[in-house]
């Protein structure tokens, strides 16, 4: 399927880390108000490092793939590294996204940033908030 990069196909057909972390330190929930796609991340954080992370996602094929990819990328990383992730980097990690898939990267970057912010502020999302994509 030429519309998707091999990385997207891999994560889409074989998602990693779906579900929720049992005793999560933090949860972040972001949705795109235009397309309605949503990603929920739950993570365990210890000493400023993401020790465990899981996703739940509803959305297009690329959004599911990127949510899965994100958990792999973020696991074991320091929160400052996670905060430094941006949409362009997500596009790169995803092995490329077509123009109409590109806003998926914004959704992923937003939910990653939100995870860091929520952890620092000691809050959790229950309803999805809008991403800036």
């Amino acid at each position, binding site marked *: *399927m030429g519309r*998707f990069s091999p990385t997207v*196909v891999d994560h*889409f*057909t074989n*998602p990693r880390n*779906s*579900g*929720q972390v049992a005793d999560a330190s933090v949860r972040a929930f972001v949705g795109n108000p*235009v*397309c*309605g796609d949503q990603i*929920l991340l739950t993570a365990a954080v210890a000493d400023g490092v993401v020790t465990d992370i899981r*996703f*739940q*996602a*509803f*959305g*297009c*094929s690329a959004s*599911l793939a990127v*949510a*899965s990819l994100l958990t792999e990328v973020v696991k074991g990383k320091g929160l400052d590294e996670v905060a430094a992730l941006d949409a362009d980097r997500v596009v790169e990690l995803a092995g490329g996204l077509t123009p*109409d898939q590109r806003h998926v990267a914004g959704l992923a970057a937003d939910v990653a940033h939100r995870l860091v912010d929520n952890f620092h502020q000691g809050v959790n999302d229950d309803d999805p908030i809008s991403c800036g994509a």
Partner: protein
Amino acid sequence: MTTRSAAGPDPAEIYLDHAATTPVAPEAVAALGRGVALHGNPSSRHSAGQAAREAVDGARAAVARLLGCAHDGVVFTGGGSEAINLALLGTFAAAEWRGHLVTTRIEHAAVLGAAGAAATHGVAVTVVPPDPSGHVDPERIAEAIRPDTLLVSVMHANNETGAIQPVERITEIAHAAGALVHVDAVQTAGKLPIAPLRADLVSVSAHKFGGVKGVGALRVPAGHELTALIHGGGQESGYRAGTENVPGILAMAAAAEVAVTASADPVVRAHREHLRARLLAGLAELDGIRVHVDSRVMAETVSVAFPGVRGDTLADLLDLRGVHVSTGSACHAGSESPSHVLTAMGVPADLARSTVRFSFGSTTTEQAVVTAAEVTVDSVRGLRRSWGANPA
């Protein structure tokens, strides 16, 4: 560009998108080859031209049998959309853009687009909604008809839901009111009998029943006033100028002959019903699914909502697992707005967006349908799981 050399899908693929287009029938491939070998122009008086002319005439006779009309009532076009546009715009152009058009909200984009174009020329257009069942109530058509109604355009069966429309009753009502009727039979040609339709104008598209893409035909009754969309050399009785697509027309005729024979065969019809039943039985493993139209419906077209997944996402996953289905009509693939057909039926947007269409054709086997159902059940469960929903 692919280098596959034989026609048809690769065997590992389960192609359940016949409503979008069909593999070319072997008989049609052979006819296409004969057409390519006819190197003359049908308008040329020499024997190479006359051989092409005779072949087109023979094809016209076959397509006339499909359409249930006289040979000279067949106008070949460059596809179903062109046939539809010719029917609507040609009729209103001949009437100098006077009069009123009645159509429905569930028509194909070609009808709605042509209706919109007619409106820009001053034609009054009434667009009737369907019932929540997906069927147009003939009474709604009767109410919409006005003294100046020139044409009523209703599809024979809907491409997204398979809902068979009461076109015979609508034709009676329209004729009684002095209006003409156009039926878009693109989805039913070669599957349901269309020759008996009493409509005046009937459109078909070859690639939906085993012919090639880019060839269509319109049934035009003797004496009907129709202005061409394409002016020029006077081909097709002046209704469609341009050198005839000889290979495509021959392939259409060959496909029509095969399809008409098959569709008249009760065994074939029973098999298609059986395929539908098997698919639905397989999908019934899942909770909460909704079949949009399941009565007065073509056996071949199964439109199902899978709450908790996006239809396009499910279609992508099925594709990666070798099962080709569509979200609504092919033309809408990739567009974000929910199907105009489901919306018109009152289906909520989220349910419409979670819809996938399975559609069968002459090459569909029971095994393919059973496998497709299994793969779908598994895929829906996986996607629901990613969403943290109950996957059942």
